[in-house]
C-alpha cells in the first residue's frame, strides 16, 4: 500500500480523505469566497489579492502579485534544495457584470466559475493550512501560485511570464483544476487557437462576409488533417452581421488546430492562411487569421514514474483516471522542461455556463490525491 509521511507517522493513502475531513469547510469557504469575486481574463487582480491575503496569513514567504495578476508565495521546505510548484488559473470566462452569487446545498455548490477554476484556486489557498495542521513539512520548497491571463486571449500569459522570470529550478509542476475528478493529464498537445475575421468594404462590394466565411469554412474542412488523424480542427464559435436586411459586413470564426506535433500544426495553419489569402483577393474583401493562443507538444510518457505513481494513488483512492491525457496547462511547463501533471478535484457539470456547479462529496478524495502526489514527489518519486 502506498503510504505518505505525515509528521513522524506513515499514513496509508486510503485513509487520507478521512484525515482531511476536518479541513473541508476551510476549502469550501475559500472556494465560495473566490468564486464570488469576478475574475475575467486580465481582470484577476481582486482574486489575486484575496489569495495574497491567505498566503500572508499562513506565513508564506515572498508573497507578491506581479504585473500579470499572478499571485505567488513560497512555503519553505526543511531542506529547500528544490522547488515543487502548484498552480491554478485564477481567470474565468464570466464577465464582472454577471451574477457571481453562489448557492450552497447539501451536496453541491452552484456558482459561475466554481469548477473552472475557483475550486482549484481555493485548494492553492488552503494547502498551506492543511499541510501545517496535518503536521506535514516538505523537504523541498513549495511554490504556490494563482495565475492570471490563462484563458482565451490570455494564452497562458501569466504562468509563462512567471516561469520565464523565476530563477530557481522547479522539479515538478502540479496544475490544479476544480474539475473533473479523474483528470490525469501529463501531455501538452500542439495547438493554435485563433480567430478568422472576414470584412467586406460596403463601398466597393455587396458580398456578404458570412457567405465568404462559409466558403472559407468549407475549404478548411477539406484540408487533410495529418496522417492517421493526428491533427484535428475545432470550429468553436461563430458570429457576424447585424441584421437580416443587410449583407454582413463582418464575420468571425473562432477555431483551434490541435496535433501531436508542433510542425504539423504549423503546416496546417500555413495552409489555412493560404486559403484566407485566396478569399481576400476580390476588391473590398479582407480575410485574415489572428492567433490568440499557442501551445507546444510535449510532456511525460505513459510509463514515467510520476504518471505511474499518480495512477497508483488514484487507484487506491478508487478514482478512475479519465482517458484524456492532454491539457494546454501542461504546455507552459513543457516549454521549461518541467515534468508536470494536471489533476481535477471533484465532479462538476455545466462548466462555463451560469449554472455551473461542483459536487461536495468527492472533494476531499480529490484533495487527498493532491497531498499524496506532493508527498510522493517530495519523497523522491520521479527523480
Amino acid at each position, binding site marked *: 500500500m502506498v503510504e505518505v509521511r505525515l509528521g513522524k507517522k506513515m499514513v496509508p493513502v486510503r485513509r487520507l480523505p478521512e484525515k482531511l475531513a476536518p479541513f473541508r*469547510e*476551510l476549502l*469550501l*469557504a475559500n472556494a465560495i*469566497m473566490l468564486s464570488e469575486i469576478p475574475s475575467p481574463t486580465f481582470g484577476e487582480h481582486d482574486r489575486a489579492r484575496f489569495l495574497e491575503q491567505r498566503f500572508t496569513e499562513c506565513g508564506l514567504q515572498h508573497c507578491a502579485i506581479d504585473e500579470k495578476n499572478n499571485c505567488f508565495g513560497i512555503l519553505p521546505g526543511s531542506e529547500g534544495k528544490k522547488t515543487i510548484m502548484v498552480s491554478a488559473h485564477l481567470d474565468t470566462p464570466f464577465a464582472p457584470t454577471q451574477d457571481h452569487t453562489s*448557492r*450552497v446545498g*447539501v451536496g453541491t455548490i452552484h456558482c459561475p466559475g466554481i469548477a473552472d477554476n475557483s475550486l482549484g484556486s481555493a485548494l492553492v489557498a488552503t494547502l498551506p*493550512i492543511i499541510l501545517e495542521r496535518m503536521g506535514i513539512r516538505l523537504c523541498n520548497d513549495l511554490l504556490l501560485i494563482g495565475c492570471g491571463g490563462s484563458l482565451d486571449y490570455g494564452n497562458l500569459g501569466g504562468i509563462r511570464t512567471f516561469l520565464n522570470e523565476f530563477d530557481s529550478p522547479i522539479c515538478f509542476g502540479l496544475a490544479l483544476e476544480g474539475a473533473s475528478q479523474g483528470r490525469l493529464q501529463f501531455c501538452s498537445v500542439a495547438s493554435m487557437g485563433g480567430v478568422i475575421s472576414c470584412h467586406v468594404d460596403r463601398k466597393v462590394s455587396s458580398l456578404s462576409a458570412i457567405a465568404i466565411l462559409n466558403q472559407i469554412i468549407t475549404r478548411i474542412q477539406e484540408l487533410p488533417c495529418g496522417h492517421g488523424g493526428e491533427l484535428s480542427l475545432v470550429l468553436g464559435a461563430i458570429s457576424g452581421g447585424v441584421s437580416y436586411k443587410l449583407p454582413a459586413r463582418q464575420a468571425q470564426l473562432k477555431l483551434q488546430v490541435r496535433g501531436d506535433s508542433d510542425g504539423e500544426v504549423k503546416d496546417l495553419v500555413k495552409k489555412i492562411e493560404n486559403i484566407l489569402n485566396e478569399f481576400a483577393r476580390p476588391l473590398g474583401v479582407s480575410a485574415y487569421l489572428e492567433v490568440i493562443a499557442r501551445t507546444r507538444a510535449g510532456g511525460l510518457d505513459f510509463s514515467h514514474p510520476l504518471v505511474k505513481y499518480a495512477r497508483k494513488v488514484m487507484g487506491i483512492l478508487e478514482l478512475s483516471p479519465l482517458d484524456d491525457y492532454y491539457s494546454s496547462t501542461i504546455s507552459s511547463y513543457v516549454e521549461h522542461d518541467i515534468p508536470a501533471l494536471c489533476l481535477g478535484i471533484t465532479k462538476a457539470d455545466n462548466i462555463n455556463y451560469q449554472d455551473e456547479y461542483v459536487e461536495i462529496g468527492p472533494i476531499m478524495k480529490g484533495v487527498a490525491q493532491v497531498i499524496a502526489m506532493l508527498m510522493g514527489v517530495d519523497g523522491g518519486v520521479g527523480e
Partner: protein
Amino acid sequence: MSNLVKKWLRENTFHHSQFWDILQLIEEKQKQNLRISLCLPTYNEEATIGKEVVIFKSELQDRYPLLDEIAVIDSGSTDSTCEVAASFGAAVYQSADILPEMGFNRGKGENLWKAIHQLTGDIIVYVDADIKNIHSRFVYGLVAPLIYRSEIKYVKAFYDRPLVSRDKVRPSGGGRVTEILVRPLFSLFYPELTAIIQPLSGEYAVRREILEQLSFPVGYGVETAHLLDIYAKWGMGAFAQTDLDKRVHRHQQTRDLGKMSFGILRAFFKRLKAQGAIGDLPELSPYLMRYQALGNEYETELIEIFEKERPAMLEVEAYRKKFGR
C-alpha cells in the same frame, strides 16, 4: 443634532475594518474568558443558510477561533434548511423543542428568545439567514465593540454609509419600513434613537446580561422593542453600531412590509403607553385590514398579526436554573 448624539456618533459608530485584526480580538476575548455564540434564526432559508454556515465555521471557528458555537434555531422549515445547515457543522435546534413547556410560536422573535436559553455564550450574535454576500465581518464587526468596550451592551449593524459627492449627501438609508415608519416615529418620540442608522437590521450582538432582561415580541416588532427597552433602561451609551458595508438580501413585497409595519406599531405603542409617553390608547386591534376590488364589489381582507410577547428570560425558572441566576 444634540451634543450627546454627536458624541455618540463619534465614539460609538464603527466600521468593520477597524477590527480587521481578529487575532487581537481573540486574545482580548480569551483574557476576559468570554464565550460567543452565533444564532441564525431560520424558516425556509435553504438557498442561503449553507453558505453562511460554511463561511462562519471556516473563518471564525476553524481558522480563527472567535465563535464558540454556531447554532440554527429553526421555526419548522419545510425545505432542506436544517439538513443543509447540519451538513456543514451547525448545531440545529427546533424552536418548538426548546423550553417546550412554554409552548411555541412561529416567528423570528420567538427563535431569538429561545436562543438565549439554548445557547451558552456570554455574547450572542444574531445574523439573518437570508444574506447573499455573507462574510465574517458580519460577526466580528459586531462583537468587537462588546469585547473592547465593557460599557457597550448592544451593537447594531448598518450598511452602505452615506455618500458625499459634489456637496450633496445621500442620506444613509434603511429599508422602506425604516424610512417611512420607524425613523418618523423615533423622530417624534425618541429623537436620539434616530442616530441608529438602520434600526431594523437583523444583525446585532448583545450581552447575555441584557438579553435575559428583555421581553421579546415573537414577530416583527422584536428589533424595535429591543431598542426602546434598552434605551429606557440603560440609555444611549449602551448602544453602538458598526458599518458592515454592503448587504445583499431578498427583496420583500410591499404587502409583506405592511404586515411588518403593523407588528412594529403594536410593539411601539405598547411601549409608549408603558413608559407614559402617550395618553390612553384604545385597545389595539390584532387585525391588519385591506380592501380589494372584485368587479364593482370590495372585499375585506383581515390579516391577523399575532404579536405575543415573551417575558424576560430571567422570569423563566428553567432558564434561571440552567444559568444559575
